[in-house]
């Protein structure tokens, strides 16, 4: 590969065009021609057919799809118009902007893909031209195919995954980002149009700002609290199980892991039932005489503070076992000499933990911790399954006191509000928050320094 790079840099595209023969020149317009001349059938026919299919598609529907992006459909709302041909009034349905936007973006992707193929064509043409000029061996069809399993194995193996990623991750993401710049909401549920940064304005300073900033604040508090509690107690639990004299360590660990292993929609939905106003926990506490009235833990009559504390505690129930598992692996690999030395010098177990074990674990786990922090910002399951955002907050627009940004995003899309543009804005803002924290994290890890 290295060699090839040097070889191609010896001739420019301009020289290829100027000095090339007719076929080489024609290959600038008809893709794969030069390859076909040299009997590289696979490459030649693939490029040629790609061009033919692309051109047919482009003129039949591609142009139309891309043009649709400019205004997302001319007819924005249902209206009655007079049809001259039939001489009657007919109802005209609005253009479906969602589909126009989706197919427009898809068309742009196809055009980008074709441009990439065209560049591949030019590069291959240039390379063949150079080999001709130097009277070197031009790879045969067979050799070209063989290289797909050797020097270009990466292309062979990555093609399908990349197509899947583009279709099912990149395309939807670009689609949603562009949705943030429209007025797609309940009032404009079929035909909508571009409105620039208006939706961002609504979220950051308009009618949703009164919900956005408190929910953002709680999301950050939640992420810090959830990460810190599970990490700290997870390490303590791991140390407890790993400490000398405890037998059947694996059995103990498994008991805790079971909680994490149970599917979350089971454990959390049942936990919600367990904490219900009429649920077993309240019954139990009443029978023991610890409380005289049932407590509203997570329902709509709960106080926001109690609901938030409950959510964090339940998250500890789920999260501590995972954190225990990972810190166990780290503890087992910790260098023992420092701990021994400290012990000989007369340090107490608490001192050893505070000054040696814990800092070491923290050091090793800091990248994983940042990842967990970001995971908690986006922790949909715990909130959605446990409280569904309850208790509802009258000052909020479509969110409850325990709602995180992601669950609010979900409500804005699939709930009563149907403010799709605002939920897209939220997605972008969540991305910016996560990206900022990741950037800080990666700058502080060795992986980043090594490049």
């Amino acid at each position, binding site marked *: 590969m290295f060699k090839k790079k040097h070889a191609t840099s010896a001739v420019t595209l301009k020289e290829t065009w100027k000095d090339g023969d007719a076929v080489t020149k024609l290959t600038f317009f008809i893709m794969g021609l030069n390859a076909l001349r040299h009997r590289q059938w696979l490459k030649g026919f693939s490029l040629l057919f790609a061009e033919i299919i692309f051109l047919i598609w482009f003129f039949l529907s591609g142009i139309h799809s891309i043009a649709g992006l400019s205004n997302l459909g001319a007819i924005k709302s249902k209206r009655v118009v007079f049809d001259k041909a039939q001489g009657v009034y007919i109802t005209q349905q609005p253009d479906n902007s969602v589909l126009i936007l989706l197919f427009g973006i898809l068309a742009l992707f196809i055009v980008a893909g074709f441009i990439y193929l065209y560049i591949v064509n030019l590069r291959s043409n240039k390379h063949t031209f150079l080999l001709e000029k130097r009277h070197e061996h031009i790879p045969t069809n067979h050799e070209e195919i063989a290289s797909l399993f050797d020097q270009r194995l990466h292309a062979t193996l990555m093609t399908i*995954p990349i197509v899947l990623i583009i279709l099912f*991750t990149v395309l939807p993401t670009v*689609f949603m980002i562009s949705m943030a710049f429209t007025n797609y909401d309940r009032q404009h549920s079929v035909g909508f149009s571009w409105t620039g940064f208006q939706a961002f304005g609504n979220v950051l300073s308009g009618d949703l700002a009164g919900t956005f900033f408190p929910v953002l604040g709680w999301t950050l508090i939640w992420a810090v609290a959830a990460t810190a509690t599970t990490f700290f107690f997870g390490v303590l*639990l791991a140390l407890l199980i790993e400490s000398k004299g405890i037998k059947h360590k694996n059995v*103990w660990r498994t008991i805790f892991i079971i909680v994490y292993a*149970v599917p979350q*929609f089971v454990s959390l939905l*049942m936990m919600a039932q367990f904490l219900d106003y009429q649920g077993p926990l309240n*019954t139990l506490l009443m029978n023991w005489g610890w409380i005289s009235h049932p407590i509203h833990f997570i329902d709509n009559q709960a106080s926001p503070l109690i609901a938030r504390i409950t959510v964090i505690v339940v998250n500890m129930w789920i999260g501590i076992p995972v954190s225990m598992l990972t810190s166990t692996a780290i503890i087992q690999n910790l260098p023992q000499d420092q701990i021994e030395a400290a012990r000989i010098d007369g340090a107490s177990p608490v001192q050893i933990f505070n000054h040696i074990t814990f800092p070491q674990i923290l050091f090793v786990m800091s990248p994983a911790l940042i990842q967990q922090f970001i995971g908690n910002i986006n922790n949909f399951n715990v909130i959605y399954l446990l409280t569904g955002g309850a208790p509802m907050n009258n000052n909020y627009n479509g969110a409850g006191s325990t709602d995180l940004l992601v669950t609010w*995003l979900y409500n804005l899309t699939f709930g009563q509000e149907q403010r799709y543009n605002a939920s897209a804005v939220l997605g972008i803002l969540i991305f910016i928050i996560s990206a900022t924290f990741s950037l800080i994290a990666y700058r502080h890890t060795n992986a980043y320094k090594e490049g």
Partner: protein
Amino acid sequence: MKSYSNQRRFALIFRYVLLAILAVLWIFPIIWIILASFSYNNTGFVSTIWPEKFTWQNYVGILTSSQYPFVNWVLNTLFVAVISATLSTFVTIAVAYVLSRLRFRFRKPFLQIALVLGMFPGFMSMIALYYILKALNMLNLGGLILVYVGGAGLGFYIAKGFFDTMPRAIDEAAEIDGANKWQVFVHIGLPLSKPMIVYTALTSFMAPWVDFIFSGIILSTSGNPKTYTVAYGLYNMVHSAKGTMAQFFTQFIAGCVIIAIPITILFIVMQKFYVNGITAGADKG
């Protein structure tokens, strides 16, 4: 000397007691779920720890229910899980191997793009996925498989970490012996990564059993309960069960227990891979 050993024994007993209390606290809600699945109850909620009356009827009910075709759900999920696990494993392992063992121009940009894409909340793209699948006329189990496999290309981190630890000298030796890169991949890379393949296959096998969100969005439009997967079916069931269909709530719990037991066992079997993956990731950031 005696007091010292006494003190140590006390400390050990204290630690055992603490551990036992914690273990009981943790496992208690799980045991309650199992107990509740045997309770005779038609009020829509279970308010006691110990059921007043034990019954097998909940299990019989959920397995024979015509309103909630649980057996169909399980078969649907099994179908989705097997196909998606096969295809996803192929995609994930191929991507991870290429990114770890081969060097090409697009490698660094790909890793960076994957990192950035991973930071967008997954829910954001659900509307788009819904419309894409609708356009393809695939709002069914096939579409669900496509979504799971489509996401597999970005789930390469743990497998890549595994391939990174394999010594490069093995590849080089094989190449000197005249093997091409494909042969190295098939005859050396794949056999050495058997544990990783098992792990990837198991993770992608388990995903459809616990996912109620994507499956809900994709399958709910059909309105036919027979096409649901088990996670969405059960989730959907409890939402209606809380209201008018209170009598089915304990059946819901029974269904949950039936599904949770194999998933839990699978997860416990896998935990070793899981830990290795996380700590390998932690070392490299």
